[in-house]
C-alpha cells in the first residue's frame, strides 16, 4: 500500500511535473490574494495591502524551484535531462554520433554473436537429469583414441561405487520398408539402460525394459519426435504398431520427446543392443560409445582414478593391449572437445575487439570533452559542481551506448540466425544456439562496462576542469591538457597492441587455410559422386552372398550411361577413421609390437574410381576371394617405413587378432590418401578385398565419364533394379565432402580475418583522430618551426613520426601479447608455427604502415600551414 503510494508519487513527479507546478502556482496565487483581502479588511489601502502580501510571501520562483528539488526522483529527472541533452548533441554532430554508435555496435554485436555460440554449444547444460553427473569413457591404445569394447563397459559396471550405471551404444542404419518408399533411418543400437542413465523418459509409451537386450525380445523400437511427426503423422495410437526394420518386424514401444536428440539431432530411432556372447569374453570386439552416470558418492576425479586403475589391470592381464588406458570426461566436455579451441579463439578475439572499441570510444568522447573545455569551465565558474559536470559527461554517453547496443544486438541476432542456418558440419549442439536470456544479460553487462570505459576520459576531463587555466590560454598548452594528450596517445598505442594479436591470428589462419588447400589428398575428387548403402543381412546371410550382391550392384551401376567407373568401399576418404592393429614381418623377423593402421575394404576398381595411383604390384581382382590366399594392398607409407629400400610386394603381415591373425601377403602399393581429414594424417593405410573382408555398410563411389557429372538418379535406379528394397543415403559429390571438411576452418578464418580488419580500421581511425587533433593544437608551433627555417618535409616527418611512434610502442606490446597468447592457436594452425615470425612481424609492419598513412593526411595539413597566418591568428 505504502509502496504503491510512493510509486504513484514518483510517477507523478517524473511524468506529471507540469501539472504539479501549475497546481502549486495556483495555490500560491490564491494565498497571496487571500492575504491581500485580509490586509484590506484590516484597513490598508489596496496598493499597500498588495505590497505587504508580496513581501511576506517571498519569491514564488524560489519556492517552485525548491519544491521541484524536494520531489522524489529529482536526481532521476536530472539524469534524464542530461541524457536528452546527449541526444541533442548527437543531432548536432551526426558524424561523431554515427562513429560512436558504429564502434559500440561492432564491439557489442560481435561479442554477443560469438558469446551466444559459445553459450549454446559449450555452456548450456545437456538436456538430461543432473547432466553434470554424466560422463563419457574412451580408450587409448598405443596413443590412439579408441572406442571401448562391450567387455570394457561390463568391467566399468562392475567397479564398486563409481558409476550408478554404464550404458553403451553404436550407430546403426535402420532400413524402414512398407508404408511408401524404403527409408534409411539414422538409428542407435543402445543398451536398454541408456535412457535411465540419461534420465529421460518417453513422451508416448515407454523406453526399453531391462531384458529387451535378450535375443528374441529385442524386436522393439523407439521413434524420435521428428520421425513420428514426419513419417507417421503424429499418430497418437502408434504405440504397439509393428514396422519392418532391416527386414524384421519391430514393435513401436514409445516416442521420445522433441527435446531428446541423442547422440545428435539427426537420429531418428533407437533399438536395443544385443551383444554377441563372444563380446563379453573379448573373443569378438566391436566398439561402442560408453556413457555412464556417476554414483552419488563418486566424483569425476575419483572415477578417473578408479578407471585408470582398471585399465592398468586390463593392460597387465592382456598380452596384446599392453599400452591401454581409459579416460573419463564429463559428457559435455566430451561433446564439445573438437570445437573448444576454435570457440576459445573466437571468444578471445571478440574480447580484444571489444577492448579496442572501448579505448576508441574513450578517446572519441575524450576528444569531444576537450573541445568543450570552455563550456565546462564557464559552468564551473557559474557554480556548477564538479560532480554535476562529471555526471553529465557520463550521462551524455548513454544515447550513443544505447543506440549502439541496440544496433549491435540486432546485428548479432541476425548473424546468429544466419549462422545456425548454415552451421559448418561437425559443430555439435547447433540447435542450442540463440540469443537467450543469459546471452542478452551478458551483452547488457558488456554494454555497461563499455559505457564506463567510454566515460572515463570525459568524466576525468570534467573533473579536472579548471576555470583559470582554461580562460588564460584557451586550454591549449596547460599541463592538464598535455596529460590528457598523453592519455589519448596511450589509448591509441593500446588499440594497436590489442589489434596485433588479432591480425597475427588472422594471418596464421589464412596461412593455414592456404596450406590445407594445397594438401594433396592422394585422390582425385573431381567428377566423383558417392552414396551410402547398407546390405540387409536377413536377405544376404553369408559374407560370400553379400559380396556377390555387391558385385551385381557394381555391374548394374557401371552399365549406366555416363558412368566411367564404379566401386564400393566401407569408408570414403575424409569420413572418419577406422583403426586396426596388424603385425608386419620385417627383416628383423615378425614384429611383436602391433602397428596401428587405417583399414579399408574395397572392390577392385576402387583405386581407379578415386584416382589413387597404383605404385607397384597389382590391384585386387574378384578372384581374391574367401577361397584364395589372404592378400592386401598397402600404401607407400607402410612400404617406406616397414621395408625401406626393398620391394614390399610379397612381404607379409598378420591381420588383426580378432579376425584370426592369419598371414596376409602384400600384392600392391598405392599412394597415401588423406583418409581421415585433409589436416590430420595419423596412420598408414592397408586395404582388403571386399571378398576377403566383407562389410555391411558400404559407400558407392561413381566416376563420371564426361562433364555433366554423375547421373545420380540413374545410378539409384540401377541399384533399385537389383534390389527394389535397397535404400541409399548421403548422396554427395567428393568435392562437397572436401568442402564440408573445410567449412569450419574457412568460417573461423573468415571470422578472424574480419575481426582483424575491423581492429585495423578502428586503430587507423584512432590514430588519425589523435594525430589530427594534435596537429590542430600545434599549428602555432609548426608555424614557428617553419619561420625558423624548418621545411615542409621536416614538419611532415615530425607529424608522421608522431603517429607512427604510437604504433611502434603498441606493436611492441602487441607482439608480447601475441606471443603470450599463441597457445590458443596451437590446435588450429596447419603447416605454420603458432609463433610464426612472418605473421607476427607482418602484422606489426601492417599496423605501422597504416599508422603512417593515417598520420600522412594531417601531416600534409601541418606542412601546408602558412606560418604567417597561424602566428597572426593568435
Amino acid at each position: 500500500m505504502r509502496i504503491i503510494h510512493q510509486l504513484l508519487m514518483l510517477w507523478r513527479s517524473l511524468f506529471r511535473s507540469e501539472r504539479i507546478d501549475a497546481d502549486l502556482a495556483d495555490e500560491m496565487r490564491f494565498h497571496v490574494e487571500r492575504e491581500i483581502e485580509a490586509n484590506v479588511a484590516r484597513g490598508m489601502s489596496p496598493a499597500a495591502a498588495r505590497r505587504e502580501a508580496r513581501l511576506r510571501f517571498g519569491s514564488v520562483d524560489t519556492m517552485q524551484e525548491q519544491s521541484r528539488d524536494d520531489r522524489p526522483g529529482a536526481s532521476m529527472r536530472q539524469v534524464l535531462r542530461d541524457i536528452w541533452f546527449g541526444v541533442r548533441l548527437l543531432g548536432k554532430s551526426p558524424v561523431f554520433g554515427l562513429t560512436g554508435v558504429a564502434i559500440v555496435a561492432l564491439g557489442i554485436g560481435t561479442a554477443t554473436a560469438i558469446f551466444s555460440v559459445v553459450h549454446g554449444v559449450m555452456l548450456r547444460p545437456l538436456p538430461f537429469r543432473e547432466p553434470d553427473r554424466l560422463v563419457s569413457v574412451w580408450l587409448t591404445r598405443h596413443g590412439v583414441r579408441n572406442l571401448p569394447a562391450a567387455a570394457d563397459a561390463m568391467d566399468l559396471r562392475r567397479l564398486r561405487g563409481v558409476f550408478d550405471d554404464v550404458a553403451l551404444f553404436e550407430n546403426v542404419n535402420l532400413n524402414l520398408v512398407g508404408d511408401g518408399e524404403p527409408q534409411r533411418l539414422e538409428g542407435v543400437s543402445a543398451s536398454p539402460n541408456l535412457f535411465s542413465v540419461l534420465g529421460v523418459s518417453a513422451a508416448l509409451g515407454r523406453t526399453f525394459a531391462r531384458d529387451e537386450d535378450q535375443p528374441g525380445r529385442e524386436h522393439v523400437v523407439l521413434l524420435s519426435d521428428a520421425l513420428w511427426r514426419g513419417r507417421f503423422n503424429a499418430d497418437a495410437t502408434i504405440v504397439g504398431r509393428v514396422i519392418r526394420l532391416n527386414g524384421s518386424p519391430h514393435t513401436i514401444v514409445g516416442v521420445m520427446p522433441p527435446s531428446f536428440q541423442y547422440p545428435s539431432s539427426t537420429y531418428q530411432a533407437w533399438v536395443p543392443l544385443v551383444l554377441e556372447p563372444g563380446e563379453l569374453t573379448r573373443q569378438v570386439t566391436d566398439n561402442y560409445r560408453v556413457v555412464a552416470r556417476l554414483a552419488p558418492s563418486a566424483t569425476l576425479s575419483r572415477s578417473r582414478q578408479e578407471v585408470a586403475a582398471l585399465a592398468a589391470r586390463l593392460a597387465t592381464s592382456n598380452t596384446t593391449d599392453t599400452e591401454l588406458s581409459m579416460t573419463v570426461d564429463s559428457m559435455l566436455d566430451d561433446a564439445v572437445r573438437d570445437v573448444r579451441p576454435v570457440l576459445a579463439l573466437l571468444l578471445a578475439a571478440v574480447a580484444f575487439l571489444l577492448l579496442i572499441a572501448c579505448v576508441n570510444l574513450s578517446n572519441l568522447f575524450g576528444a569531444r570533452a576537450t573541445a568543450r573545455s570552455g563550456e565546462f569551465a564557464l559552468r564551473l565558474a557559474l557554480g556548477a559542481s564538479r560532480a554535476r559536470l562529471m555526471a553529465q559527461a557520463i550521462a551524455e554517453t548513454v544515447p550513443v551506448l544505447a543506440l549502439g547496443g541496440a544496433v549491435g544486438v540486432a546485428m548479432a541476432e541476425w548473424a546468429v540466425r544466419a549462422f545456425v542456418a548454415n552451421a559448418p558440419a561437425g559443430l555439435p549442439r547447433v540447435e542450442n544456439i540463440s540469443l537467450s536470456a543469459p546471452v542478452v544479460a551478458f551483452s547488457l553487462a558488456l554494454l555497461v562496462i563499455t559505457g564506463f570505459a567510454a566515460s572515463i576520459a570525459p568524466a576525468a576531463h570534467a573533473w579536472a576542469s579548471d576555470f583559470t587555466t582554461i580562460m588564460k590560454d584557451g586550454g591549449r598548452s596547460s599541463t592538464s591538457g598535455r596529460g590528457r594528450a598523453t592519455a589519448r596517445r596511450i589509448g591509441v598505442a593500446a588499440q594497436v597492441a590489442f589489434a596485433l594479436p588479432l591480425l597475427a591470428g588472422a594471418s596464421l589462419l589464412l596461412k593455414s587455410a592456404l596450406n590445407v588447400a594445397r594438401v594433396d589428398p592422394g585422390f582425385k575428387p573431381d567428377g566423383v559422386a558417392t552414396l551410402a548403402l547398407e546390405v540387409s543381412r536377413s536377405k544376404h546371410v553369408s559374407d560370400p552372398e553379400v559380396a556377390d550382391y555387391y558385385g551385381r550392384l557394381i555391374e548394374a551401376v557401371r552399365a549406366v550411361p555416363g558412368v566411367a567407373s564404379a566401386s564400393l568401399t566401407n569408408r570414403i576418404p575424409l569420413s572418419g577413421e577406422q583403426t586396426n592393429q596388424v603385425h608386419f614381418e620385417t627383416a628383423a623377423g615378425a614384429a611383436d609390437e602391433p602397428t596401428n593402421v587405417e583399414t579399408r575394404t574395397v572392390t577392385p576398381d576402387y583405386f581407379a574410381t578415386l584416382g589413387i595411383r597404383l605404385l607397384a604390384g597389382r590391384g585386387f581382382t574378384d578372384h581374391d576371394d574367401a577361397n584364395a590366399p589372404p592378400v592386401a594392398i598397402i600404401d607407400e607409407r607402410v612400404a617406406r617405413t616397414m621395408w625401406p629400400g626393398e620391394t614390399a610386394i610379397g612381404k607379409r603381415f598378420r591381420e588383426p587378432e580378432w579376425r584370426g591373425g592369419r598371414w596376409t601377403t602384400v600384392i600392391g602399393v598405392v599412394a597415401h590418401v588423406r583418409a581421415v581429414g585433409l589436416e590430420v594424417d595419423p596412420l598408414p593405410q592397408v586395404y582388403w578385398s571386399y571378398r576377403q573382408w566383407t562389410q555391411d555398410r558400404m559407400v558407392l563411389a561413381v566416376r563420371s565419364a564426361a562433364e555433366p557429372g554423375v547421373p545420380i538418379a540413374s545410378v539409384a535406379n540401377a541399384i533399385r533394379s537389383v534390389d527394389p528394397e535397397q535404400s541409399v543415403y548421403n548422396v554427395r559429390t567428393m568435392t562437397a565432402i572436401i568442402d564440408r571438411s573445410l567449412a569450419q576452418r574457412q568460417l573461423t578464418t573468415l571470422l578472424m580475418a574480419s575481426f582483424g580488419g575491423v581492429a585495423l580500421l578502428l586503430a587507423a581511425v584512432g590514430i588519425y583522430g589523435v594525430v589530427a587533433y594534435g596537429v590542430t593544437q600545434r599549428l602555432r608551433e609548426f608555424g614557428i618551426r617553419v619561420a625558423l627555417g624548418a621545411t615542409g618535409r621536416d614538419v611532415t616527418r615530425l607529424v608522421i613520426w608522431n603517429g607512427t611512434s604510437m604504433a611502434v610502442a603498441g606493436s611492441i606490446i602487441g607482439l608480447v601479447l601475441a606471443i603470450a597468447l599463441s597457445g590458443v592457436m596451437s590446435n588450429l594452425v596447419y603447416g605454420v608455427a603458432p609463433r610464426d615470425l612472418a605473421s607476427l612481424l607482418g602484422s606489426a609492419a601492417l599496423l605501422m604502415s597504416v599508422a603512417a598513412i593515417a598520420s600522412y593526411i594531417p601531416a600534409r595539413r601541418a606542412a601546408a600551414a602558412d606560418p604567417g597566418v597561424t602566428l597572426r591568428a593568435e
Partner: protein
Amino acid sequence: MTRPADLVQGTLDLLIMRTIATEQLHGWAIAQRIQLLSSDVLRVNQGSLYPALQRLERQGWITADWGVSENNRRARFYRLTAPGRRRLEKERADWERLSAAISLVMRLA
C-alpha cells in the same frame, strides 16, 4: 515587530497536522489558524509552509482536493488521511513526553 524564530521542521509538521485534524483547510487558513491559536507567537513562513505541505502529502499523511474557499475562490483544501491520523497521535504523544521532560528539567535544574 520581532520575527519569531523559524519553527523546527518536525514541529511545523506536527502543527499542520493538528490544525487540519478537525476540519479541512487551505494553506492560507492553516497559517492563519496556527498564528491565531498561538496568540501570534508562531508565525508560519510561507516559504516553509508549502514545502512542508508537499512533503506531508508525499508521505501520505495528508491529502488535498481542490474546493471553493470562504471568499468563493478555487483553493486547495488539505485533510488528514487515516495513516496521518495515526501518525499525529504518535507525534503528539512524543511531543508531550518531550516537552514535559524539558519543562521538568528547566524547573528543577
